[in-house]
């Protein structure tokens, strides 16, 4: 027989001013297995905690109920008290009589007291059935995969490698360096970009802890934190980088010229080429799509020119299987394609270019090569592909104001007689040293005009660009001819980012970039445990922010790996192997592919996120969820409906822990009233509530049931809304068959701030229940056995 202690908290008046706590305590003392009941001013205080500890010793308590505030608020406190007493922390339950009764129902103390009693009874009935769970750990090693070799990937790889971790750095291009290697100078300091980057690139190549895989592609990732299995394809270079001295003799004889992607097609390169002047690995490679001589061997000039004998036409792709413990995604951005804004004429007008092209022109000019004239009159147009509903990119790309300021300054400095204009909507110089840099540009004579040009026209004879804009500060329409118009193109997720997000099942935010686990407190974690994100794969950002984020991602990965093992959340799906016949019905219902069938269904505890969406799919009721088992939840349902008086109505509200439960706490804290007959039951995800449970609730006296779940975009569990829809459909069918209004079951998705939606939906459900009237006893009886109760 369990021995339960119940502690009712006054919360210094927060509860006791509304709820008659002594009445709740008297009521609790009559509940089954309860041996001690106390009411205490502050349960969470040291003296409150000591009271529990003393009682556990004196009265040999083995389970505890604290009727106080939200378990999200103080749950951990009381779990620690139990641990201190040598009890399993699962054996404490909180009845949330503050946020769910005293606060939202403060206007009707008598009803609030009755509700607090029921909430306490629910907690007692649940704790009677709770089974202690052991927290499992899995070992974690010290190997990391970094995907993407731009500045983010380089920084993360170096930090990890210097700390003694083994890094696989995979880059799809033949060299690392990313976009930063293409830039002229960096704002606001005007450092030469490749000069500060090249040494870091060389460090990567030399580092004994970094295994660099360039010209390589991640094909497949399986497994989870501590055991990611990665398949990588390394494309053939046809030149052995160990032997190649990058002397360039091969390039001289190669007969094929193609556009050089490093210069964005502004220059040509040969089919055998060095990808960039500072390429790492510093070796040539053959572009197999351009080379004449691979198959059949018709050319072979480069092989004859190569003194080192580095060229091998028989090279072939290599496939590697890696096992890593954590992954950092640093797959970067692409610039917005300005052809999608045809009114600016990019691709049609030769004097309209992108800012990245201007970067290459300036770099080449410094090297003594003039790729194109710049002219005396230059305009920059800001926000091309950013902050624009017409192309679907509502976000600010964050770096364009400053890179345009930088490029404008460089052009003005090179030739002070040049007229340089920047046409902007809002100028955002938010970073360290940015505002001062903006001022420097103004001192140089760069003109910032507040207006967004509608379209550009080309003078067909002179090829000058005619630009018209409203100066929105003087309300005049300005017109001017320019020799060069530079489009300050925004940032969009790179194709690699999109592909890797899909491969790793990483959710993306509305802007298309990879979503972080929490925008404030977990900014470099992804919702998938053990996978981190750094740099522009997560959203537009400049180099300092990218580097900071990369170091943050590296240290988050180190924090997990240094522990050597990780504790898994105890909430996991479990299979009753006696019942399971291995039909595999559950497999497709798992949103994270944690279930496999091997005679019987097996749940991988490292992958299972504990949503419980699988449970309702099992035809043999062999699945259950630890800590939120069928028996535990049914006990709560029964207690929530027990002692219902004639004419009284009760609505059960299943609330997912992440969104709806937090939302309900928020509603309570804001003292926003909602129907007092709504009783909230906390679940990891409402997809865990089976049709059988829903139907059983009505058989036991529920007048309506509401299921709340996280909105898909913020949910830790992908795909549970579909499972809820299906469960509700099945339960509604059973209700209808018994002649009960199926609309008595409702569900909705929330984020934690939708106070009005939550109270509004509950109010309209309560009103609908009033309209429907009481469910006659014979209809409730007809439900008995309509759907088997699992568990």
């Amino acid at each position, binding site marked *: 027989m369990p021995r339960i202690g119940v502690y009712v908290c006054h919360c210094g008046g927060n509860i006791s001013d509304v709820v008659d706590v002594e009445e709740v305590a008297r009521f609790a003392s009559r509940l089954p297995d309860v041996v001690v009941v106390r009411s205490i001013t502050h349960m969470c205080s040291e003296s409150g905690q000591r009271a529990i500890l003393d009682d556990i010793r004196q009265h040999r308590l083995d389970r505890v109920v604290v009727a106080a505030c939200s378990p999200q608020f103080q749950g951990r406190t009381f779990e620690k008290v139990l641990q201190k007493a040598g009890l399993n922390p699962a054996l404490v339950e909180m009845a949330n009589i503050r946020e769910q009764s005293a606060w939202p129902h403060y206007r009707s103390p008598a009803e609030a007291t009755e509700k607090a009693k029921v909430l306490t009874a629910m907690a007692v009935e649940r704790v009677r059935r709770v089974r202690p769970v052991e927290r499992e750990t899995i070992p974690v090693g010290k190997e990391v995969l970094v995907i993407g070799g731009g500045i983010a990937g380089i920084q993360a790889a170096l930090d990890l490698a210097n700390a003694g971790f083994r890094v696989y750095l995979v880059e799809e291009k033949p060299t690392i360096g990313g976009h930063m290697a293409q830039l002229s100078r960096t704002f606001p300091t005007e450092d030469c970009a490749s000069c500060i980057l090249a040494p870091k690139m060389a460090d990567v190549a030399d580092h004994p802890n970094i295994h660099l895989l360039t010209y390589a592609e991640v094909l497949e990732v399986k497994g989870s934190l501590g055991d990611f299995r990665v398949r990588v394809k390394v494309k053939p270079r046809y030149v052995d980088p160990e032997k190649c001295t990058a002397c360039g003799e091969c390039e001289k004889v190669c007969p094929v010229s193609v556009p050089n992607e490093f210069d964005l097609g502004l220059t040509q390169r040969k089919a055998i080429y060095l990808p960039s002047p500072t390429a790492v690995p510093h070796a040539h490679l053959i572009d197999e799509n351009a080379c004449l001589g691979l198959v059949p061997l018709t050319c072979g000039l480069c092989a004859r020119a190569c003194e080192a004998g580095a060229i091998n036409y028989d090279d072939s792709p290599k496939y590697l299987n890696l096992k890593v413990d954590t992954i950092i995604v640093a797959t970067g951005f692409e610039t917005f394609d300005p052809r999608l804004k045809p009114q600016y004429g990019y691709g049609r007008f030769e004097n309209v270019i992108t800012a990245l092209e201007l970067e290459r022109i300036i770099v080449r000019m410094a090297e003594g090569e003039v790729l194109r004239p710049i002219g005396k009159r230059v305009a920059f147009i800001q926000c091309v592909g950013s902050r624009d509903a017409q192309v679907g990119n509502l976000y600010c790309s964050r770096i364009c104001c400053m890179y345009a300021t930088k490029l404008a300054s460089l052009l003005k400095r090179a030739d002070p007689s040049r007229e340089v204009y920047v046409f902007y*909507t*809002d100028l955002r110089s938010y970073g360290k040293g940015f505002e001062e840099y903006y001022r420097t540009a103004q001192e140089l004579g760069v003109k910032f005009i507040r207006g967004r040009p509608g*379209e550009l026209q080309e003078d067909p004879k002179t090829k000058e660009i005619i630009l018209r804009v409203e100066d*929105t500060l003087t*309300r005049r329409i300005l017109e001017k001819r320019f020799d060069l118009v530079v489009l300050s193109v925004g940032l969009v997720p790179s194709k690699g980012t999109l592909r890797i997000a899909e491969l790793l099942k990483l959710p993306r935010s509305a802007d298309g970039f990879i979503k972080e686990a929490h925008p404030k407190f977990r900014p470099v974690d992804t919702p998938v445990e053990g996978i981190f994100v750094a740099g522009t794969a997560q959203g537009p950002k400049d180099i300092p922010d990218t580097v900071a984020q990369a170091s943050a991602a590296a240290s988050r990965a180190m924090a997990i790996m240094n522990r050597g093992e990780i504790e898994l959340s105890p909430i996991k799906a479990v299979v009753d192997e006696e019942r399971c016949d291995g039909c595999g019905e559950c497999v497709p219902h798992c949103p994270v592919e944690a279930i496999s069938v091997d005679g019987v269904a097996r749940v991988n505890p490292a992958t299972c996120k504990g949503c419980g969406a699988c449970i309702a799919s099992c035809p043999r009721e062999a699945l259950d969820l630890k800590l939120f088992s069928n028996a535990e939840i049914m006990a709560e349902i029964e207690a929530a409906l027990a002692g219902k008086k004639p004419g009284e109505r009760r609505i059960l509200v299943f609330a997912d822990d992440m969104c709806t439960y937090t939302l309900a706490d928020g509603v309570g804290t804001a003292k926003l009233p909602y129907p007092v007959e709504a009783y909230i039951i906390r679940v990891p995800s409402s997809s865990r509530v089976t049709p059988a449970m829903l139907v059983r609730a009505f058989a036991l006296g529920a007048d309506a049931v509401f299921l709340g779940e996280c909105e898909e975009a913020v949910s830790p569990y992908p795909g549970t809304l579909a499972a809820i829809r299906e469960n509700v459909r099945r339960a509604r069918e059973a209700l209808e068959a018994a002649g009960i209004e199926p609309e008595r079951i409702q569900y909705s998705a929330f984020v934690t701030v939708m106070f009005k939606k939550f109270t509004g939906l509950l109010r309209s459900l309560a009103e609908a229940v009033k309209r429907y009237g009481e469910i006659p006893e014979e209809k409730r009886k007809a439900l008995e056995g309509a759907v088997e109760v699992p568990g």
Partner: protein
Amino acid sequence: MSEITRLDEEGEAFLTKVEILSGQKLTLCEQCGICSTSCPMVEEMDITPAAIIRAVQIGDRSVTESKAIWVCASCFSCTVRCPRGIDLAKVTEALRQFTLRRDVNYIDLREAQGEEYPTIALVSAARKFTG
């Protein structure tokens, strides 16, 4: 001399009314001016299209007396380019309603032949018969 415009409740009510009539959320406008340079009629206007929206935002009722709202040809050049997705053509139509609903400058279409009316006034008058 700069006259002071008071930001008052009547101005707020005017903004709300224009928003209801046009179905557009005008506080969204960030005053980039792309509508003005996209407008083929801007040279005929007394105030620019972007200035029309700004006037409504600050509750300046005199915008209903502007020439610009009648010059607007509802060509939708502004609408397809607005980065905030505002349909400015609907806004000028809403502003024209302020005058049309007062029933001043009523045009009898049967007698309008050969008279010099702005095209948009004729369109508005005709709309009365077509619903």
